[in-house]
């Protein structure tokens, strides 16, 4: 009756013991238990080294990436990216939705350029279901896709400058990106996650508002992009911080399965739009810009070059677009033949691929999504050791990962 069954901590009964003191005693350098050889090596500190936990809430880790840095003073000795803070199990979700519904699950994977995450599964599903896409729909896909690519690259330039400490470029590029997002919202109905591509076409034809805004924007896009880049490209501080930083040679890039602007900045002219042509890209004229240096500056400048090519493609799309339907006749509920299909598109960050297996039912049996950000994030631990903390940001930002796609 008088004795309590569970005695709480003495500090709760004894006012002379402050809970802060008890807790302060318990603060120790908590080193996680190593599960692999690599972890055992990483968490063994040498003389004068310390671990710095950066993220998942950190101003410049692009969402919820967590990296553990092993530091010797300001110098990064080793780096360990920790993923999974944004994991939603998209691939499993897709297996429990029917073929049409799966598209909107893949949409928020890559929230910066979400049209490309729709494009790859849609193409894979079309291969499985033998659907012929109308030519006008293909042109609209290319047109909106390239617009989205410019929006993504514009945002990249702002983020890159912000990670190097510049305040203004991010806001300037958001103005441009907002204009493009508004255009896409006019035609797709949503501003960020469009959910526009459908199996067999697109959800609705391009409309008057889209065309008038696009015409308006195209007439000043070139000059505007030049002006935004003028703030950065010839900036001595930016160039000095990015040049020679995180050099990735073409051989390593190919070995690490790097795609997109990152591999083209290393001198490998690999672009899925030309290497494995899809949609109406064979009918369009554009160059594949490459750069030989493979450093952060090259990766930044290459994206600036790509914006110009995308503007060319949009211009051609507007001139060559045929009339006709934008949607093939596809039933509400499709049951593709049993089989498997792979489709890949060239997104602003690299190759977005979808590998879908059908067992003949109305739901995918298995879906695998290949995301370029995940592949590129592996480069961080390859490129950053030996540089300073500030360079970690310059390198990570130039690889342009989006955590939504990394964690899926």
């Amino acid at each position, binding site marked *: 009756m008088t004795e309590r069954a569970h005695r709480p901590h003495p500090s709760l009964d004894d006012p002379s013991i402050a809970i802060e003191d008890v807790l302060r005693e318990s603060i120790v350098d908590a080193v996680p238990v190593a599960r692999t050889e690599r972890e055992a090596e990483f968490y063994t500190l040498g003389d004068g080294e310390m671990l710095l936990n950066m993220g998942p809430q950190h101003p410049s880790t692009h969402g919820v990436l967590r990296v553990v840095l092993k530091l010797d003073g300001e110098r990064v000795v080793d780096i360990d990216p920790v993923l999974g803070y944004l994991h939603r199990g998209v691939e499993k979700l897709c297996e429990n939705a029917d073929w049409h519904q799966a598209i909107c699950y893949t949409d928020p994977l890559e929230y910066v350029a979400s049209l490309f995450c729709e494009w790859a599964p849609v193409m894979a599903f079309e291969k499985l279901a033998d659907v012929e896409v109308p030519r006008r729909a293909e042109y609209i896909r290319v047109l909106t896709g390239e617009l989205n690519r410019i929006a993504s690259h514009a945002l990249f330039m702002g983020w890159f400058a*912000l990670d190097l*400490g510049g305040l203004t470029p991010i806001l300037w590029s958001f103005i441009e990106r907002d204009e493009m997002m508004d255009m896409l919202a006019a035609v797709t109905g949503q501003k960020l996650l469009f959910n526009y591509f459908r199996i067999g076409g697109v959800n609705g034809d391009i409309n008057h508002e889209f065309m008038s805004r696009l015409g308006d924007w195209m007439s000043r896009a070139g000059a505007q992009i030049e002006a935004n880049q003028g703030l950065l490209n010839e900036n001595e*501080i930016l160039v000095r911080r990015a040049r020679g930083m995180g050099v990735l040679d073409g051989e390593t890039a190919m070995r690490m399965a790097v795609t997109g602007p990152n591999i083209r900045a290393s001198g490998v002219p690999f672009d899925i739009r030309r290497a494995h042509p899809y949609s109406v890209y064979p009918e369009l004229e554009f160059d594949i810009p490459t750069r030989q240096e493979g450093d952060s500056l090259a990766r930044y400048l290459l994206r600036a070059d790509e914006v110009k090519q995308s503007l060319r493609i949009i211009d051609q799309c507007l001139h060559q677009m045929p009339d006709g339907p934008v949607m093939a006749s596809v039933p509400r509920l499709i049951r593709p033949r049993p089989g498997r299909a792979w489709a890949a598109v060239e997104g602003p960050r690299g190759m977005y691929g979808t590998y879908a297996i059908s067992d003949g039912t109305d739901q995918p049996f298995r879906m695998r999504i290949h995301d370029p950000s995940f592949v590129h994030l592996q480069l961080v631990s390859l490129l950053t050791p030996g540089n300073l903390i*500030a*360079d*970690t940001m310059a390198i990570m930002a130039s690889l342009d990962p989006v955590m939504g796609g990394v964690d899926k």
Partner: protein
Amino acid sequence: MSMAVVTWQRLNVVGKILAIAVPVLIALGLVTVGVAILAGPFAIEFVGDNVPLLRFVAAIGAVLLLTIPTAFVVIFMELKVIARMNLRVGPDRVGPYGTAMSVVHGLKFLSKEDFAPLGVDLQVFTIAPVVVFVGSVMTFLVIPFAPGLFGLDMNVGVLYLFAMGGLTVVGLLMAGWASFNKYSLLGGLRSAAQMVSYEIPLTLSLVGVVLLAGTMSLNQMVLAQSGSIADWYVWQQPLAFVIFIIAGIAEANRSPFDLTEADQEIVAGFATEYSGMRFGFFFFAEYVNVFVVSALIVTFFLGGWTAPFDWPFPVAVAIDPLAWGVGSLVAILALPVVGTLVLAAPFWLSSRITTLQALVIGFILFNVVAIGLVLGWAFVSLDWVSGLFWFFAKSYVFVFFFVWLRGSLPRVRIDQLMGFAWKWLLPAALLNIFVTAAAIVIVNR
């Protein structure tokens, strides 16, 4: 209930206030008179004996008070100017054009919890913001704002400035160490490395100015530059001017040298674990520092409070009201009424404005005109008013310059920062000293 309680309850609010205030005021007045009669002679004697001491105390009080509006103005400029550069609007909700935003910032800091995380070294953690704040505020003491308007005319003013600058480093290092946070530690170490390195070219660049002026007192330096725009030291010391600006930006921890609080790299540096008014002190000190560096640039190189040109036409505006006679004084008393009516008349004629509105407009316009006239008269006839005007005008040009840099430049890296100080600024400052000394010897021969 007694009579007193009933009477008290029957009073309204104003009556209650008066019933308390009047006896209290009478009592206070009696006490004051009594104290003045008893202690008056001693007080007068004390003041007469200790004029320098009291002046010093008054100066420190004025300096502490002056930092508040200074920091508010600089913060408001930072918010608004960077917003315009970012193609944003900036604060526009609090006060006209958002001018009260900084005041609200200050109130927000005051109303926050005074929080110290677990594991911090509480004494050092608490003292550190104060040290930083004192280090930046006390530099105000030797800055001459106008002729005769300075806290203390120290004959080692320049040395005092750098001693106070050194205090800031100690404070930042304390904050970095005491915070029990690796980001703070990195920030504190960065600040130590950066500010110690940049203090050397900063100090050496001033040696040329000290050689030219022949004194280390800031007031004497300004007096040595008075005359015309051609007497400013910026023309004789252009290299030192550039070095001082660059090193001053680094000393004030401003972009592009704001490595101690590089939020993309080390979150907020030394201030990561600080919140509430403790952080407010850092925040305050940073913006006071911006103004101090601008003021020092102006004092050393751009003539301080001296006007860039003489007032082009002579004006005799000495006022001697006693010689005017009763009629003129009555006319002056009638001036506000007449002025208001005259200025209201054109608005009153408009059919859309009522008489009352016209009178209000006339009153406001009269106030604007009258204040403008008084300020103009003061500017022309009182040299400390024009001195203040020129001093603040020049200083805020540099504050704007610092804000402009922050809005347009990325941040340099720590090794580039250190390399720049030791490989470029230091040799340039030494070169400047030798050239200046040689020139002085040759000219004086």
